[in-house]
């Protein structure tokens, strides 16, 4: 059996920059399984979009191989790759109707007109935009444009669908809706989705696996839970969620260096006095967030940590408190 899925093998991209060169993507190797919802997560400039563009063929790789179901697609132009992209700002053709936009890929592949109109009608139903086929993109809302861009790519049944920060232009509520919609479309279509985002929330809630990228390299690869609970590096711990870091001694531990913990993994120790052993501090700020409450705590050495509790605690600003971290929730990373 030939290997299925997308295999990225030591792919690099070097951009000339200010007389020198920048390795935007630095010998990245990843194996993305068929039918997987895979996310490339990282801050801007980490190389995630460049890697996505190399998979699409919009950027040529400077070395390395990109195998799709065992075939090297790196030498192929974008028009010859069984891969489609949902662009960041959708890139819908402004001079074409919704139906013409969605049918464009099929038309370019020389499919008969009857097939195209059937596929377009089906796609419009899937994205719930029936009756909008003769509108122009400018006449649609942001969310509708987003769905047309999705349909325009999905209607071609690519082996891999690439999504470049596709939800970032939408407002919060619409983004949440589209996250669920995307997940549904991915499950129903059985297509491999590669999703690029800088939004850790989005990455955690949708992905089967996440590759966290930093400076052109993969900092960590794993399921959302693996990455959140066991970040491999301090960068990953900081980038995904909030992570407190304190010298081990401050937490009464014998480890060398610093130990990390998530705000929700620490709890106040009731009835603590300044003499109680363990981590101590003073409440500097309380932020009520609805479902949780955040407590900013200032330690004696001036460091601050954040604790979060589901229920508001009986403490107020300037109270001296002690807190403890569940031993199995400590984060020890490189």
């Amino acid at each position, binding site marked *: 059996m030939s290997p299925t899925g997308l295999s990225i093998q030591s792919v690099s991209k070097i951009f000339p920059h200010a007389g020198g060169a920048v390795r935007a993507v630095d010998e990245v190797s990843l194996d993305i399984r068929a039918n997987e919802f895979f996310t490339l997560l990282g801050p801007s400039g980490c190389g995630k979009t460049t890697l996505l563009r190399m998979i699409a063929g919009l950027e040529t790789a400077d070395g390395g191989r990109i195998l799709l179901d065992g075939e090297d697609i790196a030498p192929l132009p974008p028009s010859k790759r069984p891969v489609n992209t949902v662009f960041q700002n959708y890139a819908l053709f402004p001079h074409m109707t919704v139906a013409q936009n969605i049918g464009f890929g099929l038309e*370019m592949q020389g499919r008969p007109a009857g097939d195209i109109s059937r596929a377009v009608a089906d796609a419009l139903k899937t994205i719930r935009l029936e009756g909008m086929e003769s509108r122009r993109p400018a006449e649609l809302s942001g969310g509708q444009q987003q769905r047309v861009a999705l349909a325009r790519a999905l209607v071609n049944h690519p082996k891999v669908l690439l999504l470049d920060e596709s939800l970032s232009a939408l407002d919060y509520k619409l983004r949440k809706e589209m996250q669920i919609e995307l997940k549904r479309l991915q499950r129903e279509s059985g297509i491999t989705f590669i999703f690029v985002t800088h939004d850790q929330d989005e990455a955690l809630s949708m992905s089967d696996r996440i590759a966290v990228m930093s400076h052109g390299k993969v900092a960590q690869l794993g399921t959302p839970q693996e990455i959140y609970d066991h970040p491999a590096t301090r960068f990953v711990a900081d980038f995904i969620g909030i992570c407190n870091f304190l010298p081990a001694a401050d937490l009464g531990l014998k480890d060398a260096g610093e130990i990390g913990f998530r705000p929700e993994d620490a709890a106040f120790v009731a009835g603590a006095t300044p003499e109680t052993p363990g981590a101590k501090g003073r409440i500097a700020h309380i932020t009520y967030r609805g479902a949780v409450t955040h407590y900013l705590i200032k330690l004696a050495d001036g460091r601050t940590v954040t604790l979060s509790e589901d229920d508001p605690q009986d403490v107020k600003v300037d109270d001296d408190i002690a807190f403890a971290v569940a031993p199995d929730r400590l984060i020890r990373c490189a």
Partner: protein
Amino acid sequence: MSPARKKSLLLLSPFLAVMGAFFLMPLLLIAAYSFLQAGPNGGVVWHFSWDAYVQILYTRDFDGTLVFDAGYLQIFWRSLKLAGICTALCLLAGFPMAWHMATRPPEKRNLWIMLVTIPFWTNLLIRTYAWMLILRTDGLVNNALVKTHLIAQPLTLLYNDFSIGLGLLYSYLPFMVLPIYANLERMDWRLVEAAQDLYATRAQTLRRVILPLAAPGILAGCVLVFIPAIGSFLAPDLLGGGKRMMIGTLIANQFSFARNWPFGAAASVVLMAVVMLGLMLMARKGRGLQSLV
């Protein structure tokens, strides 16, 4: 008149004054002249007459009867044809030029714009004479070809349709390049990437995405080339040797040598009407084209 209306008229007055002095007045004067009688030594006699318009289609026989004469119509037709060919050539040469300019890095684009506009720094008359020096029998091109023994006898490059076409192409190319450049420069290049991602070949991307999006610039360029080309006077007169009568040379002659101002004015009015009609057709066709793609 309400105060608000008075105020807006007052604000409009500079615009109306400029329009009136530089656009409306000359046009009205031309239109008026075309309905007058020619003065015996040039100028006009203030006496209403259709003569100038009649003269476009008819000539007077020896015994004074009017005979249909297609001579001037042929001149009109030849000018239209030449302007059309000139516009097509400008588009063929101008689009790739504009494309090249628009795809340079932003800091180099201004240099290209300057290079395209440099010819405007010198008068068109001088530049047209320069073409005569290049094209004439013992000119630059012929001398080079003869000296390198590529040809034995000099070619006739001047005083024919070729030299007129070349002169027109040269004169009006920037008017085609600049609007198309302005259009392409603003274009969203991600749409090109999107087209390629959706399996479009380069030719399909050009036809289905780039050309429709560049259509306003192309249309503007065609109008800017076609209108001056149809009434152009220097290239046909100097490079064509004045042998090939064009509408521009015809009109110029009526005001200078022939001293028949009403006829020159009438020919101008007809030319304007033809151009106006053409533009209206083009505008309609432009809309039709947009709905096609």
